[in-house]
Every structure is written in C-alpha cells, then in structure tokens.
C-alpha cells in the first residue's frame, strides 16, 4: 500500500518535474527570442540613425505655405515619353498604388488620367529606409518626385506611359492622405460585369456620388468632364463664329415661365420668387431688343419629382434664340449645324477621352449625318405604324415610342442624331407658332440623340394678338403673362430657338446610362449633397 503510494508520489514528482522542465525550456526560448529581437531592433535603429545616407532624399517637408519659389520645373506625367529618356525630372503626382518587394518598391504615379510606373530601389541613390518610407506612403497622397526617365524593354500594360518608367532619386510627401479610402479607384473604374466574374468589387452609383471628390479622380470621370468642357467650348465657339451674342439671364424670376407646376419657390424678402425653368422669356426679350442671335449657358431648375436615369432638378442649359428672315428652318439649320460641329469637334479632338470612357462603358461610336436628317412628325408616325405601333395622328410620342423611332431611324439612315419637325400643335406650349398650311400642326421640332430627346424648340409667336389667342386657348391667366405679351407690342421680329441639356448631351454622346454620371455634383429629388 505505502509502496504503491510512494510509487504514485514519485510518478507525480516525475511528471511535475517534466512539466517544469518544459516550462523552463519554453521560457528560455522566449527570452532568447526577445533578446534576439531587441538586438535586431537595436541594430536597425543603429542603421537608421547612423547609416541612412539618403535621409535628405525623402520625407514629409513642412506644409506648402508659399515660403519659397524654387526654380523647379514639374513635368506632367503625360509628357514622360521616350524622348525624355535618361533625363532627370521633377514630377508632382498622386500615389496610385505601391508594391514593395524586398529591396525595391514599385509605385504607380498618377496625374489626372495619366499614370506612369516608378521605382525606388536600394542602391547608391536610395537607402533601405527610403524604400521603406516610399512603400508606406498612403495611397492617394500627393508627392514630389525627382527621378530619371528610363526606357523599358517590355511595354508596361497597366500604365498610360507604357514605354518609360521613372527611377526615383528623391521623394517628398506634399499632402498625406488618410490611410483608409471610402472607395478604391480600381473598383470604381472596373467595367460593369467584369467584377462579378473575378469576384472583385464594383462601386455602386450612390457610393460614388457620396464620395464624389474621389470618384471624380478616376480616369473615366476625368475623361467625361474634360469632354463635357469640350462641348461647352465647341458650342460657344461655333455660335460666336456664326455671329451670336452670349447673354446672362436672371435665375430668380417673379413668375413661372412654362406653366405653374414644376417650379421651385424661394422666399424673396417679403414675397416669394421662383427659380427659372428656362431662360426662354429673357432670350425672347433680347430678340425683341434687337440682339438678333443670342445664346446662354447657365443653370436651369426643374422641380419635377421624377427619379429617372435622365432627370435632374438642376442642370446646365445651353439655350439658343435667333431672329430669322422668312422661314424658321433658317434657325433649325443653324442649331443642327451647331450640334454637328460639336460632334465633329469631339470626334476629332477628344479621341483619348472617348476611348477612356469606352474602356469602362463600351458603346458604339456616335454616328451622324451632315446636313442633319430632318424627318417630319407624320413620317415618324408612319414609320412607327409600319412597325406595328398604333397611335393617333396628333398623339404625342411616348418615351418607349421615342426610343423605338430612334432605333428605326438608326436602322434606315444609320444616324444617332436627327430632327423631328412639325409636331402636332396640341402637344406644344401656347407660344408655339401654328403651321400655316395645316392648323393641326406647328412650326416646332425636337432633336434626338440615340433615341432620346435632347432639344425641344419652335418658332415662337411674335404677334401679341395671336399670342393672346393661343394663351386663352390654353386657359392661361392673361394677367400673369402680361409682361411677356407686352414685350411683343413694339415691333418683334419673327424668331425661333431651342435649348439643350449639357448633361444629357454628354451622356448620350458617350452612350452612358445615367445622367448623374455626367453631372459633376448631381441634384435630384433625393440628393442635395455633396
């Protein structure tokens, strides 16, 4: 019995001592590791403090507060071409991506829609610490970089500057970005559908719009808005060459210009005012004031509570009004030619931008005819009837019919842009001039891009009596439009005009699907920020 007990106790002791031994061993190991680490750390610190020969070549300098004016030329990334090979240049760019690999760090530097590969490698120009510093700069930070442009043997497919890379000798952070971005730029430029296949993320519209500043940095957004600026420029340029005068009109107005609905009311001291739905009234007043040909680029407001792919509550309107001699087609031809000049200008001068957008949102190139195809409403209705659509002669085009007609016209004439002339009088506003040969029709027209309406225009009634008659026919309170009618009493030339939406034209030219993609800071019934 005791023997057994003794045995048992001895066994216990043995087990205990075994455990203790293991414990001790482990502790010893730990201590050794710790000592090792400390030694390493100390060694590293030593190297950082003692051996960093390149510490003047990188870092985060003081905030640019305009202390100095260095004689330094910052070369744009798009200009980094093989012609610049072996030159030492300064570049300011964002860190698009960085990838460290041992003694090297690859960076993609981006400026607007252009990017270039850059390389920091441990050598006689860069230290280990410098490479580490470069690798740790947060994405989207802005850096000033000095480096040598080197030709590469193999094209760098992922960059716009494919034939060269930049060997960095100095790198300074001008503005440090926060480490976490609300959305990744690569995710935001991924074509629809490509994300699903590879299991990668895409960014939805609302996230993009919530973080618009970052989304606007993507190559696609950069291209879209550069092209949009081009549209404005071409519009101005063409019209000024045609002898037009640019006018500025008030946006705070006392009465709604096109019917009472759909206007924003603003409080105006002790009374209320409205935000202009179109510069219509003022354009016409300028015509009566002998300006002959006017145009106006400015914001237009629509209080329509519609949440569709093509409606905004505030957009940029490009408006034209022109006095003509005998026939309103003089004006139609001028407007159509202006559009054709814009399309030609974009086709010839914005190839890069169009290609960039197409990479993310593929679409067929925009086709058009010169002179522009002009069909009559009757012909449009006939084409639709031939395709099996039942509709009345004086019925307005519904949105689906509008799109179908666009497809039919494209099939027959192979054009994405056409004019539909001679709309039924009943579906147009009261100031539309009736057709002299058939009172059911009017001297009005719409213009379409890819089957969607972009411009609505007409010859306006310049005769106060006929204008009054038509207003009564439309049950409009004459008191409210008295000032408008009175402006035609003292000699008014015959005139016509029209207005287009800048965002819609950009969207339809590029074949995009949502007008918010072509509005920098879109406003719709549900969005007021950013």
């Amino acid at each position, binding site marked *: 019995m005791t023997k057994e007990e003794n045995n048992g106790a001895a066994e216990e002791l043995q087990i205990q001592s075994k455990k203790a031994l293991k414990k001790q061993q482990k502790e010893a190991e730990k201590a050794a590791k710790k000592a090792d680490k400390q030694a390493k750390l100390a060694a590293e610190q030593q190297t950082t403090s003692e051996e960093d020969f390149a510490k003047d070549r990188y870092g985060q300098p003081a905030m640019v507060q305009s202390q100095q004016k260095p004689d330094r030329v910052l070369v744009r990334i798009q200009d980094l071409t093989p012609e610049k090979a072996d030159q030492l240049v300064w570049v300011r760019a964002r860190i698009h991506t960085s990838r460290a690999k041992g003694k090297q760090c690859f960076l993609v530097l981006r400026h607007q829609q252009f990017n270039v590969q850059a390389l920091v490698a441990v050598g006689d120009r860069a230290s280990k610490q410098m490479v580490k510093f470069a690798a740790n700069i947060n994405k989207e930070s802005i850096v000033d970089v000095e480096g040598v442009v080197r030709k590469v043997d193999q094209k760098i497919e992922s960059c716009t500057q494919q034939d060269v890379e930049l060997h960095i000798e100095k790198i300074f952070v001008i503005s440090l970005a926060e480490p976490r971005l609300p959305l990744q730029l690569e995710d935001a430029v991924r074509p629809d559908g490509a994300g699903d296949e590879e299991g990668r993320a895409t960014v939805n519209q609302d996230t993009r719009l919530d973080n618009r500043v970052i989304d606007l940095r993507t190559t696609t957004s950069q291209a879209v808005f550069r092209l949009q600026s081009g549209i404005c420029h071409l519009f101005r340029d063409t019209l000024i060459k045609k002898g037009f005068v640019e006018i500025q009109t008030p946006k705070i107005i006392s009465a709604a210009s096109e019917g009472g609905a759909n206007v924003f009311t603003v409080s105006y001291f002790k009374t209320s005012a409205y935000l202009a739905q179109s510069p219509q009234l003022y354009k016409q007043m300028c015509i009566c004031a002998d300006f002959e040909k006017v145009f106006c680029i400015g914001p237009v407001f629509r209080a329509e509570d519609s949440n569709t792919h093509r409606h905004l509550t505030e957009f940029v309107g490009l408006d034209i009004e022109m006095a003509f001699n005998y026939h309103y087609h003089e004006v139609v031809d001028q407007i159509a030619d202006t559009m054709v000049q814009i*399309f*030609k200008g974009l*086709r010839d001068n914005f190839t890069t931008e169009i290609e960039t957008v197409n990479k993310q949102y593929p679409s067929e*190139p*925009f*086709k*058009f*005819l*010169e*002179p522009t*195809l*002009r*069909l*009559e409403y*009757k*012909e449009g*209705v*006939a*084409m639709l*009837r*031939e*395709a099996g659509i039942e509709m009345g002669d004086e019925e307005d085009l519904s949105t689906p019919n509008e799109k179908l007609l666009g497809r*039919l016209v494209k*099939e*027959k*004439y*192979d*054009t994405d842009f056409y004019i539909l*002339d*001679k709309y039924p009088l009943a579906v147009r506003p009261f100031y539309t001039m009736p057709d002299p*040969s058939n009172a059911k029709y009017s001297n009005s027209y719409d213009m379409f891009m890819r089957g969607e309406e972009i411009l609505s225009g007409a010859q306006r009634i310049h005769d106060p009596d006929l204008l009054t008659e038509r207003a009564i026919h439309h049950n409009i309170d004459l008191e409210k439009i008295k000032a408008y009618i009175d402006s035609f009493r003292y000699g008014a030339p015959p005139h016509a005009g029209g207005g287009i939406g800048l965002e819609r034209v950009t969207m339809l030219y590029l074949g995009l699907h949502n007008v918010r993609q072509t509005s920098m800071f879109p406003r719709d019934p549900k969005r007021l920020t950013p």
Partner: protein
Amino acid sequence: SKPLAGTADLDTLLGKNYGALRDIVINANPSHPPLSLLVLHCLLRKRFHVLSTVHVHSSVSNVPPHLLACFEEQDKNQSRHDFQLGFTLIWKDVPTPQMKFSIQNMCPIEGEGNIARFLFALLGQQQDPITATLVDSWIDMAIFQLGQGSSKEKVAVLRTINAALGRSPWLVGANRSLADIVTCCVVLQAAGPVAIPANVQKWMKSCENLPEFNGVYKLLQ
C-alpha cells in the same frame, strides 16, 4: 391636296402607304460614286415628284464639293410630305453601294446593279422574260467583269460590247434599256487605260446625249 400622277402606280408596286414620304436611302462610297443610280434618279424625277437630298455620314470626311452638289436645285417652299418619293443619297464608308427602303419588309440591298434594277422597276416598264434576262446578264457582266475584273477581262468585255453594238444601236432591243445605262456608266468609270473600240465610243456618245445623263458629269469631275 389632289393625288399626283403616278401615286397609284407606286401603291401597286410598293404596297401599303402609311401616309408619308416613301424614302429610298442609298449609301455610297465617295471614292466610287454609283453613276448609274444618278441616271436612274433623273428618270425617276421625270415620272414622280421626288425629294432628293445628299448627306455625309460621320464615317467619311472631306467629301469633294461636286459630290455634295450632285442634285439640281429644288423648290425650297415645299415641305417633305408634298413629295411622292424621297431619294436620300448618303456618302458613307461602305464597301459597295447599299439601298435601304422598307426596313420592316426588306433586307438592305447590296450592289449597284441590284439597286439599279429596283429603281428601274419603279418606272413601271413591262419587259418580256427574254429581254429582262438579257438586260440582267449585261448588268452582271458590266459590274463584275468590267468594273472589278483584270485589264484582260476588261478588254474581252469591251470586245463583246463592241460586237453587240455592231448589230444594233443599243445593247438590248431597239431602245435604250437599263443595260445601256449601267454598262455605259461602268465604262465611263472603269475603262481607264484600256482602249475603247469604235462602236462602243459611238454608243457612249449616244448615251451621254440623253438628258438623264446630265447629272453624271457632275460626279465625274
């Protein structure tokens, strides 16, 4: 407005009228203007009230001005629905002339010869099967062997034409037919360095004297 002469014929030939202009669209490459279609356009104008327009498609640029002004001036005061037929010529980057008419019922028609046959049929001339087949075969020979063939083939075709014209003043029968129109236009365009035999030269003079050939010279500048 009262119905114009010929509208009833168009209804029998082309079927239901949807109450609007019947527009014939022809796409043609400015580097190779389809001369015969212009001649036929002229003939159509004699019979119908035709609205003729010229456009340039965005696929081509720098179309020479004489190609833009290939139709005579028209009465600008009429609106589109006053016309019976539309003839819309679009200068476009196409490999061969193409016609689009009724997109719901017809596929696009390719080739100058085929379009010429269609346009000629609108003039409503009745032909017996033998004449019609002869005309067709001259057109094929002109378009494919003379228009696209080697210089050896061209010489051979010109010899055949020369022989036929030795027997009668026109290629088929006693009067000018579609065969003469198409063949003459192809010779004008394609003969180039190849020498033109005597009978053919004489026949071409007679073709060129026809009023419907007036428009062709504008295109040949």
